[in-house]
């Protein structure tokens, strides 16, 4: 119990939370773009797992940054199917999303089995070292919590700034919001609704793939089927909690990561409490957040509905 009063416990939990949140930050920011444009991307889980496997298979013989990038492209390739089927052929977004999730899980499972011999060498990458920021990392406990992280985490935070800027300060960001809120009005103003939705969906695929790649290269290091363990769906909850704001999505991802880390760390404090109960903490928090945010969250009005242009 007394450990709970020590600053190191909390700094370790904050640090762990940020680490666990990193893949979620990428994925939920990408998904925020798609959903602001009115596209409900339930295939996010599929983008993440295909990004994870691809990044490993590219990074293993080459270098991690290349694997990371190609992982993003793999997620984008799967999102291209979403574009084709839902945005261009008007198939139901929810159905296609589930289809892409299964396709991602099935394809990665297949490739993994075909390429891994029984008893053979498992492809793996070594995990990245932490980047310490001089002086700042030396601040007593805050430094441990906030400044010793891998470049995947730093990049995700930079991405938050960039995405926030794009979403709220550029024409593209404005168009995304317009086609998600009222596609008919946007089209009347001369915005190409299908093009903007296509771009937003591809962004979401790319960032979803990066999220999977960050999970793989940044914290797991080797593949296993179902690696992403529903993180793609958690990202959807994060977005709701954030009420479709970019900054909020980053904060929401951190909150989930923090409680996940808290569950792990409390296991050392409350030895008698079953670990499964502690692992349920982040999901319980997510449920509470999901319920409470139903009060304030306001989803894009055109979300989930296909736009069929009138000729």
């Amino acid at each position, binding site marked *: 119990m007394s450990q709970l009063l020590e600053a190191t416990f909390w700094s370790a939990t904050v640090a762990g939370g940020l680490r666990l949140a990193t893949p979620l930050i990428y994925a939920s920011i990408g998904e925020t773009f798609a*959903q602001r444009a009115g596209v*409900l991307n*339930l295939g996010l889980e599929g983008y993440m797992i295909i990004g994870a496997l691809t990044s490993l298979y590219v990074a293993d013989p080459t270098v991690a940054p290349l694997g990371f990038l190609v992982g993003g492209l793999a997620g984008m390739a799967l999102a291209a*199917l979403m574009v084709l*089927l839902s945005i261009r*052929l*008007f*198939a*139901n977004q*929810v*159905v*296609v999303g*589930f*289809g*892409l999730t*299964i*396709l991602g*899980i*099935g*394809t990665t*499972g*297949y*490739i993994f*089995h*075909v390429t891994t011999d029984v008893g053979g060498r498992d492809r793996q990458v070594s995990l990245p070292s932490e980047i310490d920021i001089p002086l700042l990392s030396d601040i007593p406990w805050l430094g441990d919590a906030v400044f010793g992280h891998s470049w995947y985490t730093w990049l995700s935070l930079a991405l938050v700034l960039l995405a926030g800027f794009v979403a709220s300060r550029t024409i593209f960001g404005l168009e995304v919001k317009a086609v998600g809120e009222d596609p008919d009005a946007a089209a009347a103003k001369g915005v190409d609704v299908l093009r903007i939705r296509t771009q937003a969906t591809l962004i979401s695929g790319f960032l979803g793939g990066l999220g999977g790649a960050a999970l793989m290269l940044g914290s797991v290091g080797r593949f296993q*089927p179902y690696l992403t363990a*529903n993180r793609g*769906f958690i990202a*959807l*909850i994060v977005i*709701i909690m954030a009420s479709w704001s970019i900054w909020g999505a980053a904060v929401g991802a951190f909150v989930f990561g923090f409680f996940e880390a808290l569950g792990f760390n409390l296991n050392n404090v409350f030895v008698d409490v*079953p670990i*499964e*109960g502690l*692992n*349920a903490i982040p*999901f*319980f928090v*997510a*449920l509470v957040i*999901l*319920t409470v*945010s*139903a*009060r*304030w*969250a*306001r*989803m894009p*009005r055109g*979300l*989930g*509905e296909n736009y069929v242009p009138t000729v």
Partner: protein
Amino acid sequence: MADTFLGGDVGDAPPEPLEDEGRRLTTSLSTSCLAVLIAVVLGGLIMLMSGENPLTAYTAMVDGAFGSKFALGETLSRAAPLAIVGYGTAVALRAGLITIGAQGQVVAGAIGALVTAQFFESAPSAVAIPAAALGGALFGMAWVLIPALLRAHFSVNEILSTLLFTEFAALLIEYLLNNPLKPPTAITPQSDPYPDNGILGLVIDGTRFHVGVFVAVAIGLLFVWWVRSDRGFSYDLYGENPNLAQSLGISGNRVIVNSLLISGATAGLVGWIQAAGLLQRVYVEIASDIGFFGLVVAFLGGATPGGVLVAALLFGALQSGGLAMQSSEGIPASLSDIIQALLLLGFSIRYAPQIIRLTRGVMANFTLIGKRRK
């Protein structure tokens, strides 16, 4: 084409009623076959690219799904849970709700059935079997109760809340099978063998075709009754046009809670037949992917009685065939996942007009969160 058969004026054709299956069948049979063909060809291409022979693979798959008494039993015992979950989620889908929580409800149902069966260990089978079924169904319902109430009263998205309850179920069963329900001699997490007096026996020896498979038939018949009943009609109406339904005095909250409870009960029954029939023990992976694929089956079958049946049999065959192919040819069974996903994607376009009609309901009710503001 079909319109000419019905002799209607194409231009003024009244909107097709949701359960007009005969007509849908004639118009769609050829396109369905095309979707299946595309999925099979793409699956074959994937195998070619990975250096496998698609012909041997597909032969092994068909053989493993239909080639023997045992294979047929495997296909049926896999199709049954998918059909049951499919029918349950179809009730919710027709009311405009998408629940992916069947996975967790199957787990809860299995726990409920096992605990009830252990309580009635010395009772006659005529008592123990129905009691366990009831226990399973009730646990399945309990597992969806909170998401249902949250959806009805706070507009909390049911896709995400039921997903969280699936996580809770996974953690719960892991705890139970590692601690209180684990026999002292067991090494891996599992329960005691299912009590003898509650076992659903085999229909054909030498297979895994057990009596529980008939539960799927019963649920299918109930579903046929449901879609033709007044109440089923009012639920469909709510799904298609909630405002109209509510102005006719149908309580939206009741439709939401009841249809989700129905889906929970059917998923709970699946937990029961898996524990009492197929596995005769409870394992952590007892739900495998039934919950998830059950929803897919409901989608694929267009939430209609015949469609769900065909889709469940198809998926059951793909899964049992895939596993047989893995053990005889060494080609990963994940290939069946790929083909199932491709089927769903192919059908998502092939069903486009119908899905638009079905999802008019889903979308009218759809809320990722909060109220949809127009």
